[in-house]
């Protein structure tokens, strides 16, 4: 535990962050335990420690992204538990979460990403654009302004993240492992950039968590953490002195509690003994992969012999991962050949796959399965004999130091622990070959060494071939041979010493950079970005800051922030033409399908007769039915058994039985009974059949009576003149189309909006909402806006098709219909947002939207049966569901030519629904992670 005295070197500047007794739990797991720490202001403060000791949790608490459970967190002179203070300082803090480009929007371009953040903080367009230009030039991103963030290399993503963080001149910048998974060159450039920024803005405080000890040595102040507690803090020199060690790496190990230190040994690599054996395990020959006109891997060739450790180095995006994927058979090569164990790689060759263990760069295990379940599943899929599985799983858990986490879900573990699990999984079936794509990114030094001891052991005593890519130079030194890749080509392949010697450099890192400089394609990457001076000038200018404009922002709702979110959501929508087409064209297709398909006029019903009379009269009775357009006669029924069988099979909707003596009895005037059986399995159809039969029976009687000379009396005592109003021809289409439009304008907009929030939650960019001054209402309405616009477009198309194609007359005012539609789609999208705010996974949001919209809209809102006739819960839902009211407006304007006065009672509920739904969203949506 530290006392404030640790900050003595930083002089009079007050601490930027003060922590007192801060605790945090995830369920059973204690992530932070009574942390008390003061981060000095105006300097670069580092957090170091093994994986899963709570560094990230601590940073997210400081950034205000996570709500405080216990203790006191003071940032920039105020309590972060106080919502008012939080909302005030959010504009002064910039937070870059862990994971490459995690808070960026992959489909948006570099320019659009920065622009989005910039707009959240105001300033004039000119100012912002100028600033973006300067920032991107200084970071070397200037040539890639139009490239989507998702297509940037890891290093460029992190630089972009930095640009986004710097756009508003923060007073406190929080970087969580910003260089993990980034190649040495990009890493160096990243820190140079940070130095430039700090030189220009000396007052700015920076807090960084890192796994690289050589980076930590450059920081002004350090805090070492372990097990949710602070072990030591002070300047790097103080820490070295207090531990009596030479390097931070050693100091860090010395600081660890006894039981963690005990297992630690240095990695020693015995020389390979069987080099002569010469068996080739991996062979690549002119391996090439093109994606469109982009060549990711360009004629790569190498041979790796059995038991060799082959290291693969290179900047992010140089083609290492693509090469590895081709070796595992995940990607078919465009040209060239790859052989494993002398056999051509074939995606269908399961036997070879069983001999290989592959670990991909990104965590790709099942986050819904526990550590143990993941290991067991993989052991089974690789056909480890059932009896050996428990022992093997235990062995892996011990080997990779995963004890105590057996029943945890990967999501709740730190990045480093997840990497270890991935490795354990790749090795659970004891493969003869390991293909490991940056396996140690984000893993702490001790665990990394432990991991390398395993690799060395496997290679030297087990003869396992290891093909590994890494960004750590000390790991490259441990390989038997390394190869340096850039822009899809292998620049050099040799032993580590050989590479260093050939280049005439002192270390591998220098050799690495030298080779890049010699390579024409690599030169651009190495070239120092220009414009850093200008950046310094812009950053140090007091009145140039965008944040100056932010003071004019309203606290609770500001249109500019709302519009920034609206703009971004629209851009993402525009980048997804398939979704746009589906939304617009889908509504049109559905209108056709439902307009034509749903029909209340029933025709061509099958019926058959059991005629026991067989006279002219009985046949006349049958003809009376068969002659109508409603019924189609089937072959006559022979007996009751036949009748029963055919009705059961659903072949007959109606069966008629004419009794013996039918004609005779009619002539005599004695009572006769005609029997009719209707198939009641489908009640609406049965009801229609009943009506038809009754009508035709009456008609037949009237005709018969006249024939028998009973005169006009039998034709009826009165006339009933039925006028079908609003739809005089009783066309189903005319009634149906105005009823289908409201349903479509609910389902599609709700589904569009339903994924908007939950998708950000699942993919991580929701963090931007947590840590920027954006309020809930700004966030929600901003997201809603583009979907309302899209839905209105859809509404215009549907109305046009209804009138022009279906010939449904729009008798009332188009303006009133449009006004109603605007309110209605606002409510529909708000409903989607509500589901989205509530759900935690996209699957649940999709399913939830489907069940919460289709049934109420199609059945409870008056499309088929009016709401006033419904009962029970369905009635209640119908009464409050927005579709009910827009259905009245739609039918009222389309068919009844009603004006606003007549429809007022339907407008009011819609106008109430929008703010109520949005209010509920705001309540459901958290502004912090809990």
């Amino acid at each position, binding site marked *: 535990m530290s006392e404030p005295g640790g900050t003595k070197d930083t002089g009079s500047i007050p601490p930027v962050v003060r922590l007192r007794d801060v605790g945090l739990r995830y369920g059973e797991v204690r992530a932070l335990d009574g942390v008390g720490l003061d981060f000095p202001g105006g300097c670069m403060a580092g957090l170091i420690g093994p994986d899963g000791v709570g560094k990230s949790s601590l940073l997210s608490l400081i950034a205000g992204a996570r709500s405080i459970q216990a203790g006191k967190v003071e940032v920039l002179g105020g309590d972060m538990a106080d919502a008012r203070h939080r909302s005030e300082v959010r504009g002064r803090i910039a937070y870059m979460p862990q994971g490459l480009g995690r808070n960026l929007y992959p489909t948006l371009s570099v320019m659009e990403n920065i622009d989005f953040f910039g707009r959240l903080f105001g300033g004039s367009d000119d100012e912002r654009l100028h600033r973006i230009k300067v920032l991107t030039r200084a970071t070397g991103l200037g040539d890639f302004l139009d490239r989507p963030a998702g297509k940037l290399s890891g290093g460029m993503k992190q630089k972009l993240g930095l640009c986004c963080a710097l756009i508003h001149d923060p007073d406190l910048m929080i970087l969580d492992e910003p260089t993990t998974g980034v190649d040495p060159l990009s890493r160096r450039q990243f820190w140079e950039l940070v130095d430039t920024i700090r030189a220009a803005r000396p007052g700015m405080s920076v807090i960084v968590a890192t796994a690289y000890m050589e980076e930590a040595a450059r920081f002004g102040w350090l805090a070492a953490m372990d097990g949710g507690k602070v072990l030591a803090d002070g300047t790097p020199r103080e820490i070295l002195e207090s531990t009596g060690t030479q390097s931070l790496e050693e100091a860090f190990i010395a600081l660890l509690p006894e039981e963690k230190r005990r297992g630690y040994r240095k990695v020693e690599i015995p020389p390979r003994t069987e080099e002569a054996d010469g068996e080739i395990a991996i062979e690549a020959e002119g391996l090439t992969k093109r994606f469109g006109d982009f060549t990711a891997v360009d004629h790569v060739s190498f041979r790796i012999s059995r038991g060799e450790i082959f290291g693969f180095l290179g900047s992010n995006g140089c083609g290492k991962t693509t090469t590895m994927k081709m070796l595992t058979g995940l990607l078919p090569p465009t040209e060239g050949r790859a052989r494993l164990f002398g056999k051509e790689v074939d995606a269908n060759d399961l036997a070879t*796959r069983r001999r290989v263990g592959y670990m991909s760069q990104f965590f790709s295990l099942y986050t819904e399965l526990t550590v143990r379940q993941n290991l067991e599943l993989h052991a089974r899929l690789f056909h480890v004999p059932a009896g050996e599985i428990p022992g093997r799983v235990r062995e892996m858990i011990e080997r990779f130091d995963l004890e105590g986490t057996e029943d945890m879900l990967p999501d709740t573990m730190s990045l480093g622990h997840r990497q270890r699990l991935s490795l354990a999984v790749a090795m659970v079936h004891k493969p003869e070959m390991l293909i490991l794509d940056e396996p140690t990114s984000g893993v702490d030094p001790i665990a990394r060494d432990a991991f390398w001891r395993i690799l060395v052991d496997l290679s030297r005593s087990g003869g396992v071939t290891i093909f590994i890519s890494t960004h750590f130079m000390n790991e490259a030194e441990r390989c038997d041979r390394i190869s340096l890749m850039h822009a899809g080509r292998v620049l050099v392949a040799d032993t580590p010493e050989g590479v260093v010697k050939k280049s005439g450099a002192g270390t591998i890192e220098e050799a690495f950079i030298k080779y890049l400089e010699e390579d024409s394609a690599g030169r651009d990457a190495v070239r120092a970005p220009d414009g850093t001076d200008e950046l310094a000038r812009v950053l140090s200018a007091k009145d140039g800051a965008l944040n100056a404009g932010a003071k004019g922002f309203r606290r609770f709702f500001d249109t500019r922030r709302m519009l920034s979110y609206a703009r971004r959501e629209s851009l993402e929508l525009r980048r*997804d033409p398939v979704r746009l087409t589906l939304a617009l064209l889908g509504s049109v297709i559905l209108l056709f399908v439902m307009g034509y398909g749903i029909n209340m006029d029933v025709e061509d019903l099958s019926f058959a007769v059991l005629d026991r009379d067989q006279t002219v009269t009985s046949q006349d009775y049958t003809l009376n039915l068969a002659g109508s357009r409603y019924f189609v006669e089937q072959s006559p029924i022979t007996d009751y058994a036949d009748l029963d069988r055919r009705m059961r099979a659903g072949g007959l909707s109606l069966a008629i039985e004419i009794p013996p003596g039918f004609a005779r009895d*009619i002539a005599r005037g004695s009572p006769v009974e005609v029997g009719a059986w209707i198939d*009641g399995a489908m009640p609406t159809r049965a009801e229609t059949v009943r009506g038809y039969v009754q009508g035709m029976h009456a008609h037949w009687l009237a005709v018969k009576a006249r024939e028998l000379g009973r005169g006009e009396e039998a034709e009826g005592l009165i006339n009933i003149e039925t006028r079908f109003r609003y739809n005089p021809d009783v066309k189903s289409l005319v009634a149906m189309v105005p009823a289908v439009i409201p349903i479509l304008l609910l389902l599609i907009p709700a*589904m569009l909006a339903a994924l908007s929030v939950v998708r950000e939650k699942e993919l991580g960019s929701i963090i931007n909402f947590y840590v920027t001054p954006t309020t809930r209402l700004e966030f929600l309405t901003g997201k809603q806006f583009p979907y309302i616009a899209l839905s209105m477009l859809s509404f215009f198309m549907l109305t046009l098709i209804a009138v022009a194609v279906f010939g449904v007359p729009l008798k009332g005012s188009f303006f009133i219909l449009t006004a109603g539609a605007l309110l209605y789609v606002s409510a529909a999208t708000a409903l989607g947002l509500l589901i989205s705010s509530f759900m935690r*996974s996209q699957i649940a949001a999709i399913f939830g939207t489907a069940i919460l919209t289709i*049934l109420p809209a199609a059945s409870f809102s008056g499309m088929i049966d009016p709401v006033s006739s419904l009962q029970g819960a369905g009635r209640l839902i119908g009464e409050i569901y927005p579709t009910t009211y827009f259905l009245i407006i739609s039918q009222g304007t389309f068919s009844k030519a009603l004006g606003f006065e007549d429809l007022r009672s339907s407008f009011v509920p819609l106008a109430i629904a929008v703010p109520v739904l949005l209010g509920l969203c705001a309540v459901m949506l958290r502004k912090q992670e809990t």
Partner: protein
Amino acid sequence: MRASNIFYLGIKELRSLARDPVMFVLIVYAFSFAIYTAATAMPETLNMAPIAIVDEDRSPLSSRIVGAFYPPYFLPPELIDQSEMDARMDAGLDTFALDIPPDFQRDMLAGRRPTVQLNVDATRMSQAFTGSGYIQAIVNDEVRAFAQRYRDTAELPVELTLRARFNPQLNKSWFGAIMEIINNVTMLSIVLTGAALIREREHGTIEHLLSMPVTPFEIMTSKVWAMGLVVLAASTFSLVVIVRGLLEIPVEGSILLFLAGAAAQLFATTSMGIFLGTIARSMPQFGLLLMLVLLPLEMLSGGTTPRESMPDAVRYLMLAAPNTHFVMLAQAILYRGAGFSVVWPQFVAIIAIGAVLFGIALTRFRKTIGLMA
């Protein structure tokens, strides 16, 4: 192909689902509350239809007619003036307005065949048609019964005895409950398989699976059986507890036979889900695609409106959808008590459609899986 791979991958699917409590709540809701509400909300054909009467005669006969409209078929009639009639219908207050002219009784008895005007709001599709038939029958009956007291009528003595089989009361809740189960079976099975596939893709786990000694066939089959099982369990629960227990709907045929049909249907719909999952590139696209597929499946399979009423083109096209056959099968087994000898053609159709869907999905899955990684 190894059966053990399919089994363990399926177990993994079940475990993943068990980790999502919200999903569990939604499934329970869809197969209990939603079924119950859908079944009980539907009125019994004509229920509480709002009717207004303009009585310009004020005779014993006209009062008799007014008195003949009562719940549950009709709401008690509103007696209004002729001037109010249009406004009330415009506002949607009444579905029907009956106008009895002055001197109606006198003219009728004198054999002058007076005319009663019945106005129907034709935008209210279901009530408009059945309701106007009812009203005509009621008015005619009342007039005839009234007339018989004063004079001889000359009706033919032929009576039509109508009986509805399988559902004598034409109880709509019987129908609504089963159709809602069918709808939810389709919806859930498509979501569970399709969305789960996209999630695996978005989280990179598909790529991971493919680097292991498992085939696309094994991956797909495991999803089909695991998700099919979940939906089958949910529908069994719904049928036994909600439909038979709570709603007390008599089931004529064999529940086991129906469940066998449901299993065949699930084979088809889970394959369809995977197929959609290979088409959509992201979850938002999948959500829209789902709506696009689900609505026609539900609306046009014969579960909402009778197939006989659809245009021929739609009717034949919908024969390619498994739902159409499943609805027929469900109606035959559950209401008409049909046995396998009757419904085997539906079984054959569903399994054939399912096999085709499975084949297409597998081909697409194999082809696109490289792009998913």
